[in-house]
């Protein structure tokens, strides 16, 4: 079977260190350009700048209809990988080929404007997520029903509770019908009933052939949902396999 995501040797280096170096001023740029002989305005960081590899040599294949869970401690590179797959940031080395349209929900309130109403935000957010206007109109009722915000459609979203924010954000992303769905830690603030609804939705889109990559600290939902799990550790895939086994080994590290 042909993979829908094919990633090879993906690496991402972040520059760290002094604050002024992370966001250089012109004076620093001038100083560094003299020192490193780098171009002034478009100057890259010098080779001796302190850095960290958030991802190293990550290679994998993901198939249509597969739900893959990514687990690991904070700073293991899970979110960085999703950001790269969502094209928000570019890898430093390697690359990935996507054989389908990607949809992502990295953080919940993406693109919501607090002064606009729920209705207006659905259109705005749908557009930013890549939906055409008539496509949004067609899905509108479905999104509203899923998010359970019928009574608050014409209320500004700044008056929404965090739960309503989350429901609306997930509802829009979940109705995009992407070929690849990337979800980063989106269910953490959802209540039990909405979590169940989201998990059901993820299952049903994967039955339709969508590949889902799911980053979560909720190990139970990873077991329930995923056919495969990746355990990330310090930017590398530490272990890959059936969720039960991967999670058991992951937890064993902490009990030891």
């Amino acid at each position: 079977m042909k993979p829908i995501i094919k990633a090879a040797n993906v690496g991402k280096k972040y520059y760290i260190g002094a604050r002024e170096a992370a966001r250089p001023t012109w004076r620093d740029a001038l100083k560094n350009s003299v020192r490193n002989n780098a171009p002034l305005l478009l100057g890259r960081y010098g080779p001796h700048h302190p850095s960290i590899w958030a991802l190293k040599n990550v290679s994998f294949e993901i198939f249509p209809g597969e739900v893959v869970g990514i687990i690991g401690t904070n700073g293991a590179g899970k979110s960085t990988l999703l950001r790269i797959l969502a094209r928000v940031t570019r890898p430093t080395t390697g690359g990935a080929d996507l054989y389908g349209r990607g949809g992502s929900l990295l953080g919940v309130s993406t693109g919501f404007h607090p002064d606009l109403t729920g209705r207006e935000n659905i259109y705005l957010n749908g557009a930013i997520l890549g939906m055409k206007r008539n496509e949004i109109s067609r899905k509108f009722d479905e999104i509203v029903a899923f998010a359970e915000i019928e009574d608050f459609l014409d209320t500004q979203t700044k008056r929404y509770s965090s739960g309503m924010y989350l429901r609306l954000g997930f509802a829009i992303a979940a109705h995009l019908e992407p070929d690849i769905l990337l979800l980063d830690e989106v269910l953490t603030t959802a209540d039990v009933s909405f979590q169940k609804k989201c998990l059901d939705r993820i299952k049903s889109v994967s039955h339709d052939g969508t590949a889902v990559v799911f980053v979560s600290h909720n190990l139970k939902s990873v077991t329930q949902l995923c056919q495969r799990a990746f355990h990330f550790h310090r930017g590398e895939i530490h272990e890959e396999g059936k969720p039960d086994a991967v999670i058991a080994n992951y937890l064993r590290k902490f009990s030891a």
Partner: protein
Amino acid sequence: MSTSVNDATSIVSDLSAPPFGIERPAKLLPADPVTRIRPARFWETIDLRELWAHREVLYFLIWRDLKVRYKQTMIGAAWVVVQPILMTLVFAVFLGRFIRVPSDGIPYPVFAYAAMLLWTFTSSAILSSSYSLVTNSQIITRIYFSRLALPTAAVGVRLVDFMIASVFLFVFMIYYRVQVGWTIVMLPLFVAEIAVLALAVGVLTAALYVRYRDVGTLLPILLQVWMFVSPTVYSASIVPARLRLIYSLNPLVGIMGGFRSALFNLSFDWTGIIISVVVTLVLLAVSLQVFHTLDSSFADEV
């Protein structure tokens, strides 16, 4: 008919056993990747088709900003005329009445208001597009779309303001009985050119502002200087002939001169206009390239 069946079977037979034997729907994948994710190179070619593909986003971003503004403010649209009218009033009294600055035979208030409209548009469009990436950092760090849409939308919003404020220009012209001639058909061309110029500068400063916050401090100062080296409150004809060519390197000279000529039925300074078009287009090309080069690091730096 039979070939399509063959095609379908060839795809199905291509399937090797997936890991862990999950039953998956046979989804027809394209032969070539839809998206190739690769490291950023120093020099990348610009894909303007991408901005076109994201035009819906552009429309919604403009719509969002206009809508929010009119929700938050009491008199909404009226605010966009306050700045040019106040400035025109001050210049009309001090420069027009007291100093008697020559205005090509046009009543000074109309003469100044025409340029104030253009200037208010230019400076506000450049400022808001400069800040657009940083203001929308929440979106940039969470979702991919053509980032060029952000500064472009900021210019679009100001263009709408410009159109609204233009109504008063025609009110002034009727009041002062300014004669309009065939040259008025040239007007949209200069509006288009100034929009491209504002976009060119705004795109460049937006990209630089993500990395160098100095831009936020420097830009208002430079804009103020730019206003006075442009024929906003005086006519370009006061510049000595031997300096005119150098003076015309400021693209606003050709644009503001052309805009007034079109409006007040005066003769066009074609040399100045051609120079301004060339400078504007070169600036746009450079800006787009810089923006595109820095684009790959926006999400990491904003």
